[in-house]
C-alpha cells in the first residue's frame, strides 16, 4: 500500500475508532507537553523520568487488589505511587547528604524493580485478565479501547484547563519561588498542585508511550519549544502542539506499519520536531546563534582594521598601503583584503591601486571605537583599581559591544574625561 492509500483508509468511515484513538493519543501528548513546560523550566526533567517509572507498581497493585483491568483503578494506583516517589525524592534529599542525581536514579530503579516483581507475580499467578498489563512498559496507544481513550482525553483536557487557571502561580514558581512567596502566593500549595497535575498527566501518558519513554513526552516538546519563544504562554502552546502532532502521527505510523510500536514512534517524531526547532529557532536556535556569531566576528574584524588605518593616518601618512597594515599591524593578508573590501562598501575608506585612504565617515567610525576603548580603560582603572598595563586586553574585547546607551552612561559616570590612563586623548 502506498502512503496515500494508508492515509485515505486512515480517515475513512470504517476506521472511525482508529481516528478517535489517534486524536485521543494526540490529546494525551498535548497535555504532557503542556505540563512538561513547567517540568522543563524548573529543571526537573529527570523527576519526570522518575515519576513515569514509579507509576508501574501502583498500576500492578491496583490490578492485584481489584483483579480487573479497569483504567480508572490503574489511574488511582499510578497517581498514588507517582506522588509517593516525588515525596521520597524530596524527603531523602532534605534529610541526607546524598545528591539529587543518586536519589533520582535509586528511586527510579527501585520503584521500577518493585513494579517488575509485582508484574511477574501477577503473570505467574495465572489470572487470565492479566494479559496486556505489560503493555504499560512500552505503551499501546494504537490498541487502546474507545472508552479508555475518551476517559483519558477528558482527564487530559481537565489538566490543561487547570494549568491555564493556575498559569500565573506556576510561571512564578518556575523562576523565583521567593519572589512568588513575597507576592503572597502559597508556594507549597502551588508546588503540590503542579506535582499532582504532573503525576496525573504521566499516569495517562504512560498508556500511550509506556513507562520508559514517558519522560520524553514531558521534556522533549518543551525543550524544542524553548528555542522558539521566550514567553511561557507561547511555549505552552508550542509544546502542546508538538505533543499533539507526534501523538497523532505516532498512532498513524503504528497503524500503517503493521504492529509497529506506538510509543517509540511518538518519541521519534517528537524528537525530530524538537531537533528542527533547536536548529532553526529564530532567537535561540543553533543556526541563528551561529549566524549572530559570524556577524559579530565580521563587525569586530571591520572595526579592528579600521582603527589601525585611522591610527596610521593620524601619524601622518595620508595614504596607507596594504603592505603597511600587514607589516606594522600584523594583519594576515587574506582576510585583510576581504575586510578592506567590506570597509570600502561601507564607505569608510577608498582604495586606489593598493593604497588606502580613510575618509571622514571612516574617521568618525574609528574614533567611535577608540573612544569606547579608552572610556572602558578609565572605567576599569577607576572602579576596579586595575593597573594601567592590565587594561588594554579587556578593552580590546569590550570596545565592539558597548552600545551607544552604555557609552552615554559611561561618559556621565566618568564626568566626560579628557585623557585615558595611558595619557592618550579621548576623541569625542
Amino acid at each position, binding site marked *: 500500500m502506498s502512503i496515500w492509500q494508508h492515509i485515505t483508509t486512515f480517515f475513512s468511515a470504517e476506521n472511525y475508532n482508529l481516528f478517535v484513538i489517534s486524536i485521543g493519543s494526540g490529546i494525551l501528548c498535548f497535555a504532557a507537553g503542556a505540563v512538561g513546560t513547567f517540568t522543563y523550566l524548573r529543571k526537573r526533567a529527570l523527576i519526570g523520568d522518575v515519576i513515569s517509572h514509579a507509576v508501574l507498581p501502583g498500576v500492578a497493585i491496583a490490578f492485584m487488589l481489584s483483579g480487573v483491568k479497569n483504567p480508572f483503578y490503574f489511574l488511582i494506583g499510578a497517581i498514588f505511587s507517582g506522588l509517593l516517589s516525588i515525596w521520597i525524592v524530596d524527603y531523602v534529599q532534605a534529610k541526607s*547528604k546524598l545528591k539529587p*542525581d543518586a536519589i533520582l*536514579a535509586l528511586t527510579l530503579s527501585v520503584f521500577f*524493580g518493585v513494579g*517488575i516483581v509485582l508484574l511477574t507475580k501477577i503473570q505467574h499467578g495465572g489470572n487470565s485478565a492479566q494479559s496486556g498489563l505489560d503493555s504499560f512498559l512500552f505503551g499501546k496507544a494504537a490498541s487502546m479501547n474507545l472508552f479508555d481513550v475518551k476517559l483519558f482525553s477528558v482527564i487530559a483536557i481537565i489538566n490543561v484547563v487547570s494549568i491555564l487557571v493556575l498559569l500565573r502561580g506556576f510561571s512564578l514558581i518556575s523562576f523565583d519561588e521567593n519572589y512568588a512567596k513575597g507576592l503572597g502566593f502559597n508556594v507549597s500549595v502551588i508546588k503540590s498542585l503542579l506535582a499532582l497535575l504532573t503525576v496525573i498527566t504521566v499516569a495517562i501518558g504512560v498508556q500511550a508511550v509506556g513507562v520508559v519513554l514517558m519522560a520524553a513526552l514531558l521534556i*522533549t516538546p518543551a*525543550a524544542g519549544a524553548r528555542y522558539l519563544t521566550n514567553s511561557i504562554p507561547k511555549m505552552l502552546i508550542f509544546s502542546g502542539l508538538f505533543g499533539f502532532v507526534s501523538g497523532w502521527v505516532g498512532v498513524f505510523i503504528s497503524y500503517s506499519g503493521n504492529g509497529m510500536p506506538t510509543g517509540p*514512534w511518538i*518519541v521519534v517524531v517528537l524528537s525530530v520536531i*524538537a531537533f528542527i526547532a533547536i536548529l532553526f529557532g529564530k532567537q535561540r536556535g543553533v543556526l541563528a546563534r551561529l549566524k549572530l556569531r559570524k556577524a559579530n566576528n565580521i563587525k569586530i574584524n571591520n572595526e579592528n582594521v579600521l582603527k589601525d588605518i585611522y591610527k596610521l593616518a593620524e601619524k601622518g601618512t595620508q595614504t596607507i598601503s596594504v603592505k603597511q597594515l600587514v607589516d606594522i599591524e600584523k594583519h594576515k593578508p587574506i582576510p585583510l583584503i576581504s575586510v578592506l573590501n567590506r570597509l570600502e562598501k561601507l564607505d569608510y575608506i577608498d582604495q586606489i591601486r593598493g593604497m588606502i585612504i580613510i575618509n571622514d565617515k571612516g574617521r568618525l567610525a574609528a574614533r567611535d571605537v577608540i573612544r569606547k576603548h579608552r572610556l572602558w580603560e578609565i572605567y576599569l582603572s577607576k572602579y576596579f583599581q586595575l593597573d594601567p598595563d592590565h587594561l588594554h586586553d579587556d578593552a580590546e574585547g569590550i570596545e565592539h559591544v558597548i552600545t551607544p546607551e552604555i557609552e552615554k552612561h559611561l561618559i556621565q559616570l566618568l564626568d566626560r574625561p579628557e585623557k585615558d590612563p595611558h595619557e592618550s586623548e579621548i576623541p569625542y
Partner: protein
Amino acid sequence: MNDFYIIFTASLVAINCALMGSFLVMRKMVMLGDAISHAVLPGIFVAYLISGSTASLPILVGAAFSGILATLLIEWFTKKARMQSDAAIGVSYTLLFAIGIILISKFGQNADLDQQCVLYGEIEYVSLWLKPIFGSFMLPKQSLILLAVAALLIGAVIWGYKGLFITTFDPNFALSTGVSVAFWHYFLMGGVSLTTVVSFESVGAILVIAFLSGPPAIAYLLVEDFKKMLYLACAIGVFCSFAGYYFAKWLDVSVAGSIAAVTGILFVIVFVALQLRKRNVDVIST
C-alpha cells in the same frame, strides 16, 4: 548449581557497577549512567543485524559505539545548543531507546533480543550457556565476560586511582596541578559504558541503574573514607544479589526486579536507622 550461576553473575555485575557507581555518585553523574544504559540499545541491535550473531564481541562494539553516541549527543545539546543538562539527558536517551525498540520490532522477530529482556534482562537463563573452565567445573558465558571486565575495571581503578580521586573530589586543584580533568572524565565514562553494556545483556537496564546508584549511595551514608566506600559498596552489591535472588525464588518473580527491590529495602533500612540515631544524638546533645 543453577542458584550459584545466577548469584555469581549478579554479584559480578554488582561489583562492576559498585566500582563505577561510587565515582558517579561522588561526581553527581549517576543519571548519565542511567542514560547510557538505555541508549546502548540501538547499537546492540545494529551490531546484531550486521554480524548476524549474538556473539559478544560485535555486540560489545555496537553497544560501546552507541554509548559514545549518547554522550556526544548529550554534549552537543548542552554545549552547542545550550540546553540545560537534565533535559539534554532526558531528550537524548529516550530518542536512542525509542530507535532501538523500533529496530527490534521491525527486524528482530528472530532475535534473542526483545523488549522485556532489554529492561529486565534474562539472568534466569544464564545457565543455558555454560562453558567448561577446568574439567567438569563450568561457568556461564555471561559471567566469564563479566569476570574479564571486572578484572579490567579493578586494574583500571587501581592504576588510575589518584587521577580519578583527585578529579572527582577537587577538580580545581587537579586543574591547577596539570591533571587533565577531561581525560579522567572520558576514562570513567568509558568504564561506565563498558560496565552497562556487559551487564545490560544479563540483568537488563533497570538493575544496572539500581546497582550503579544503590550500593554506592548506601555505602556513602555509612562511611566517610572513599576507599572504604568502594569496598563496602561492592560488598553491599553482592549481598543484595544473594538476598534478591532468594527473595525472587521464594516469591517466584523476576530476579532482576527483586534484586532492585531488595537494594531499595536495604537503603530504606539504613536511611531510617541513621535518621533515628541522629534524632537520639540530637536529644542527648540538647
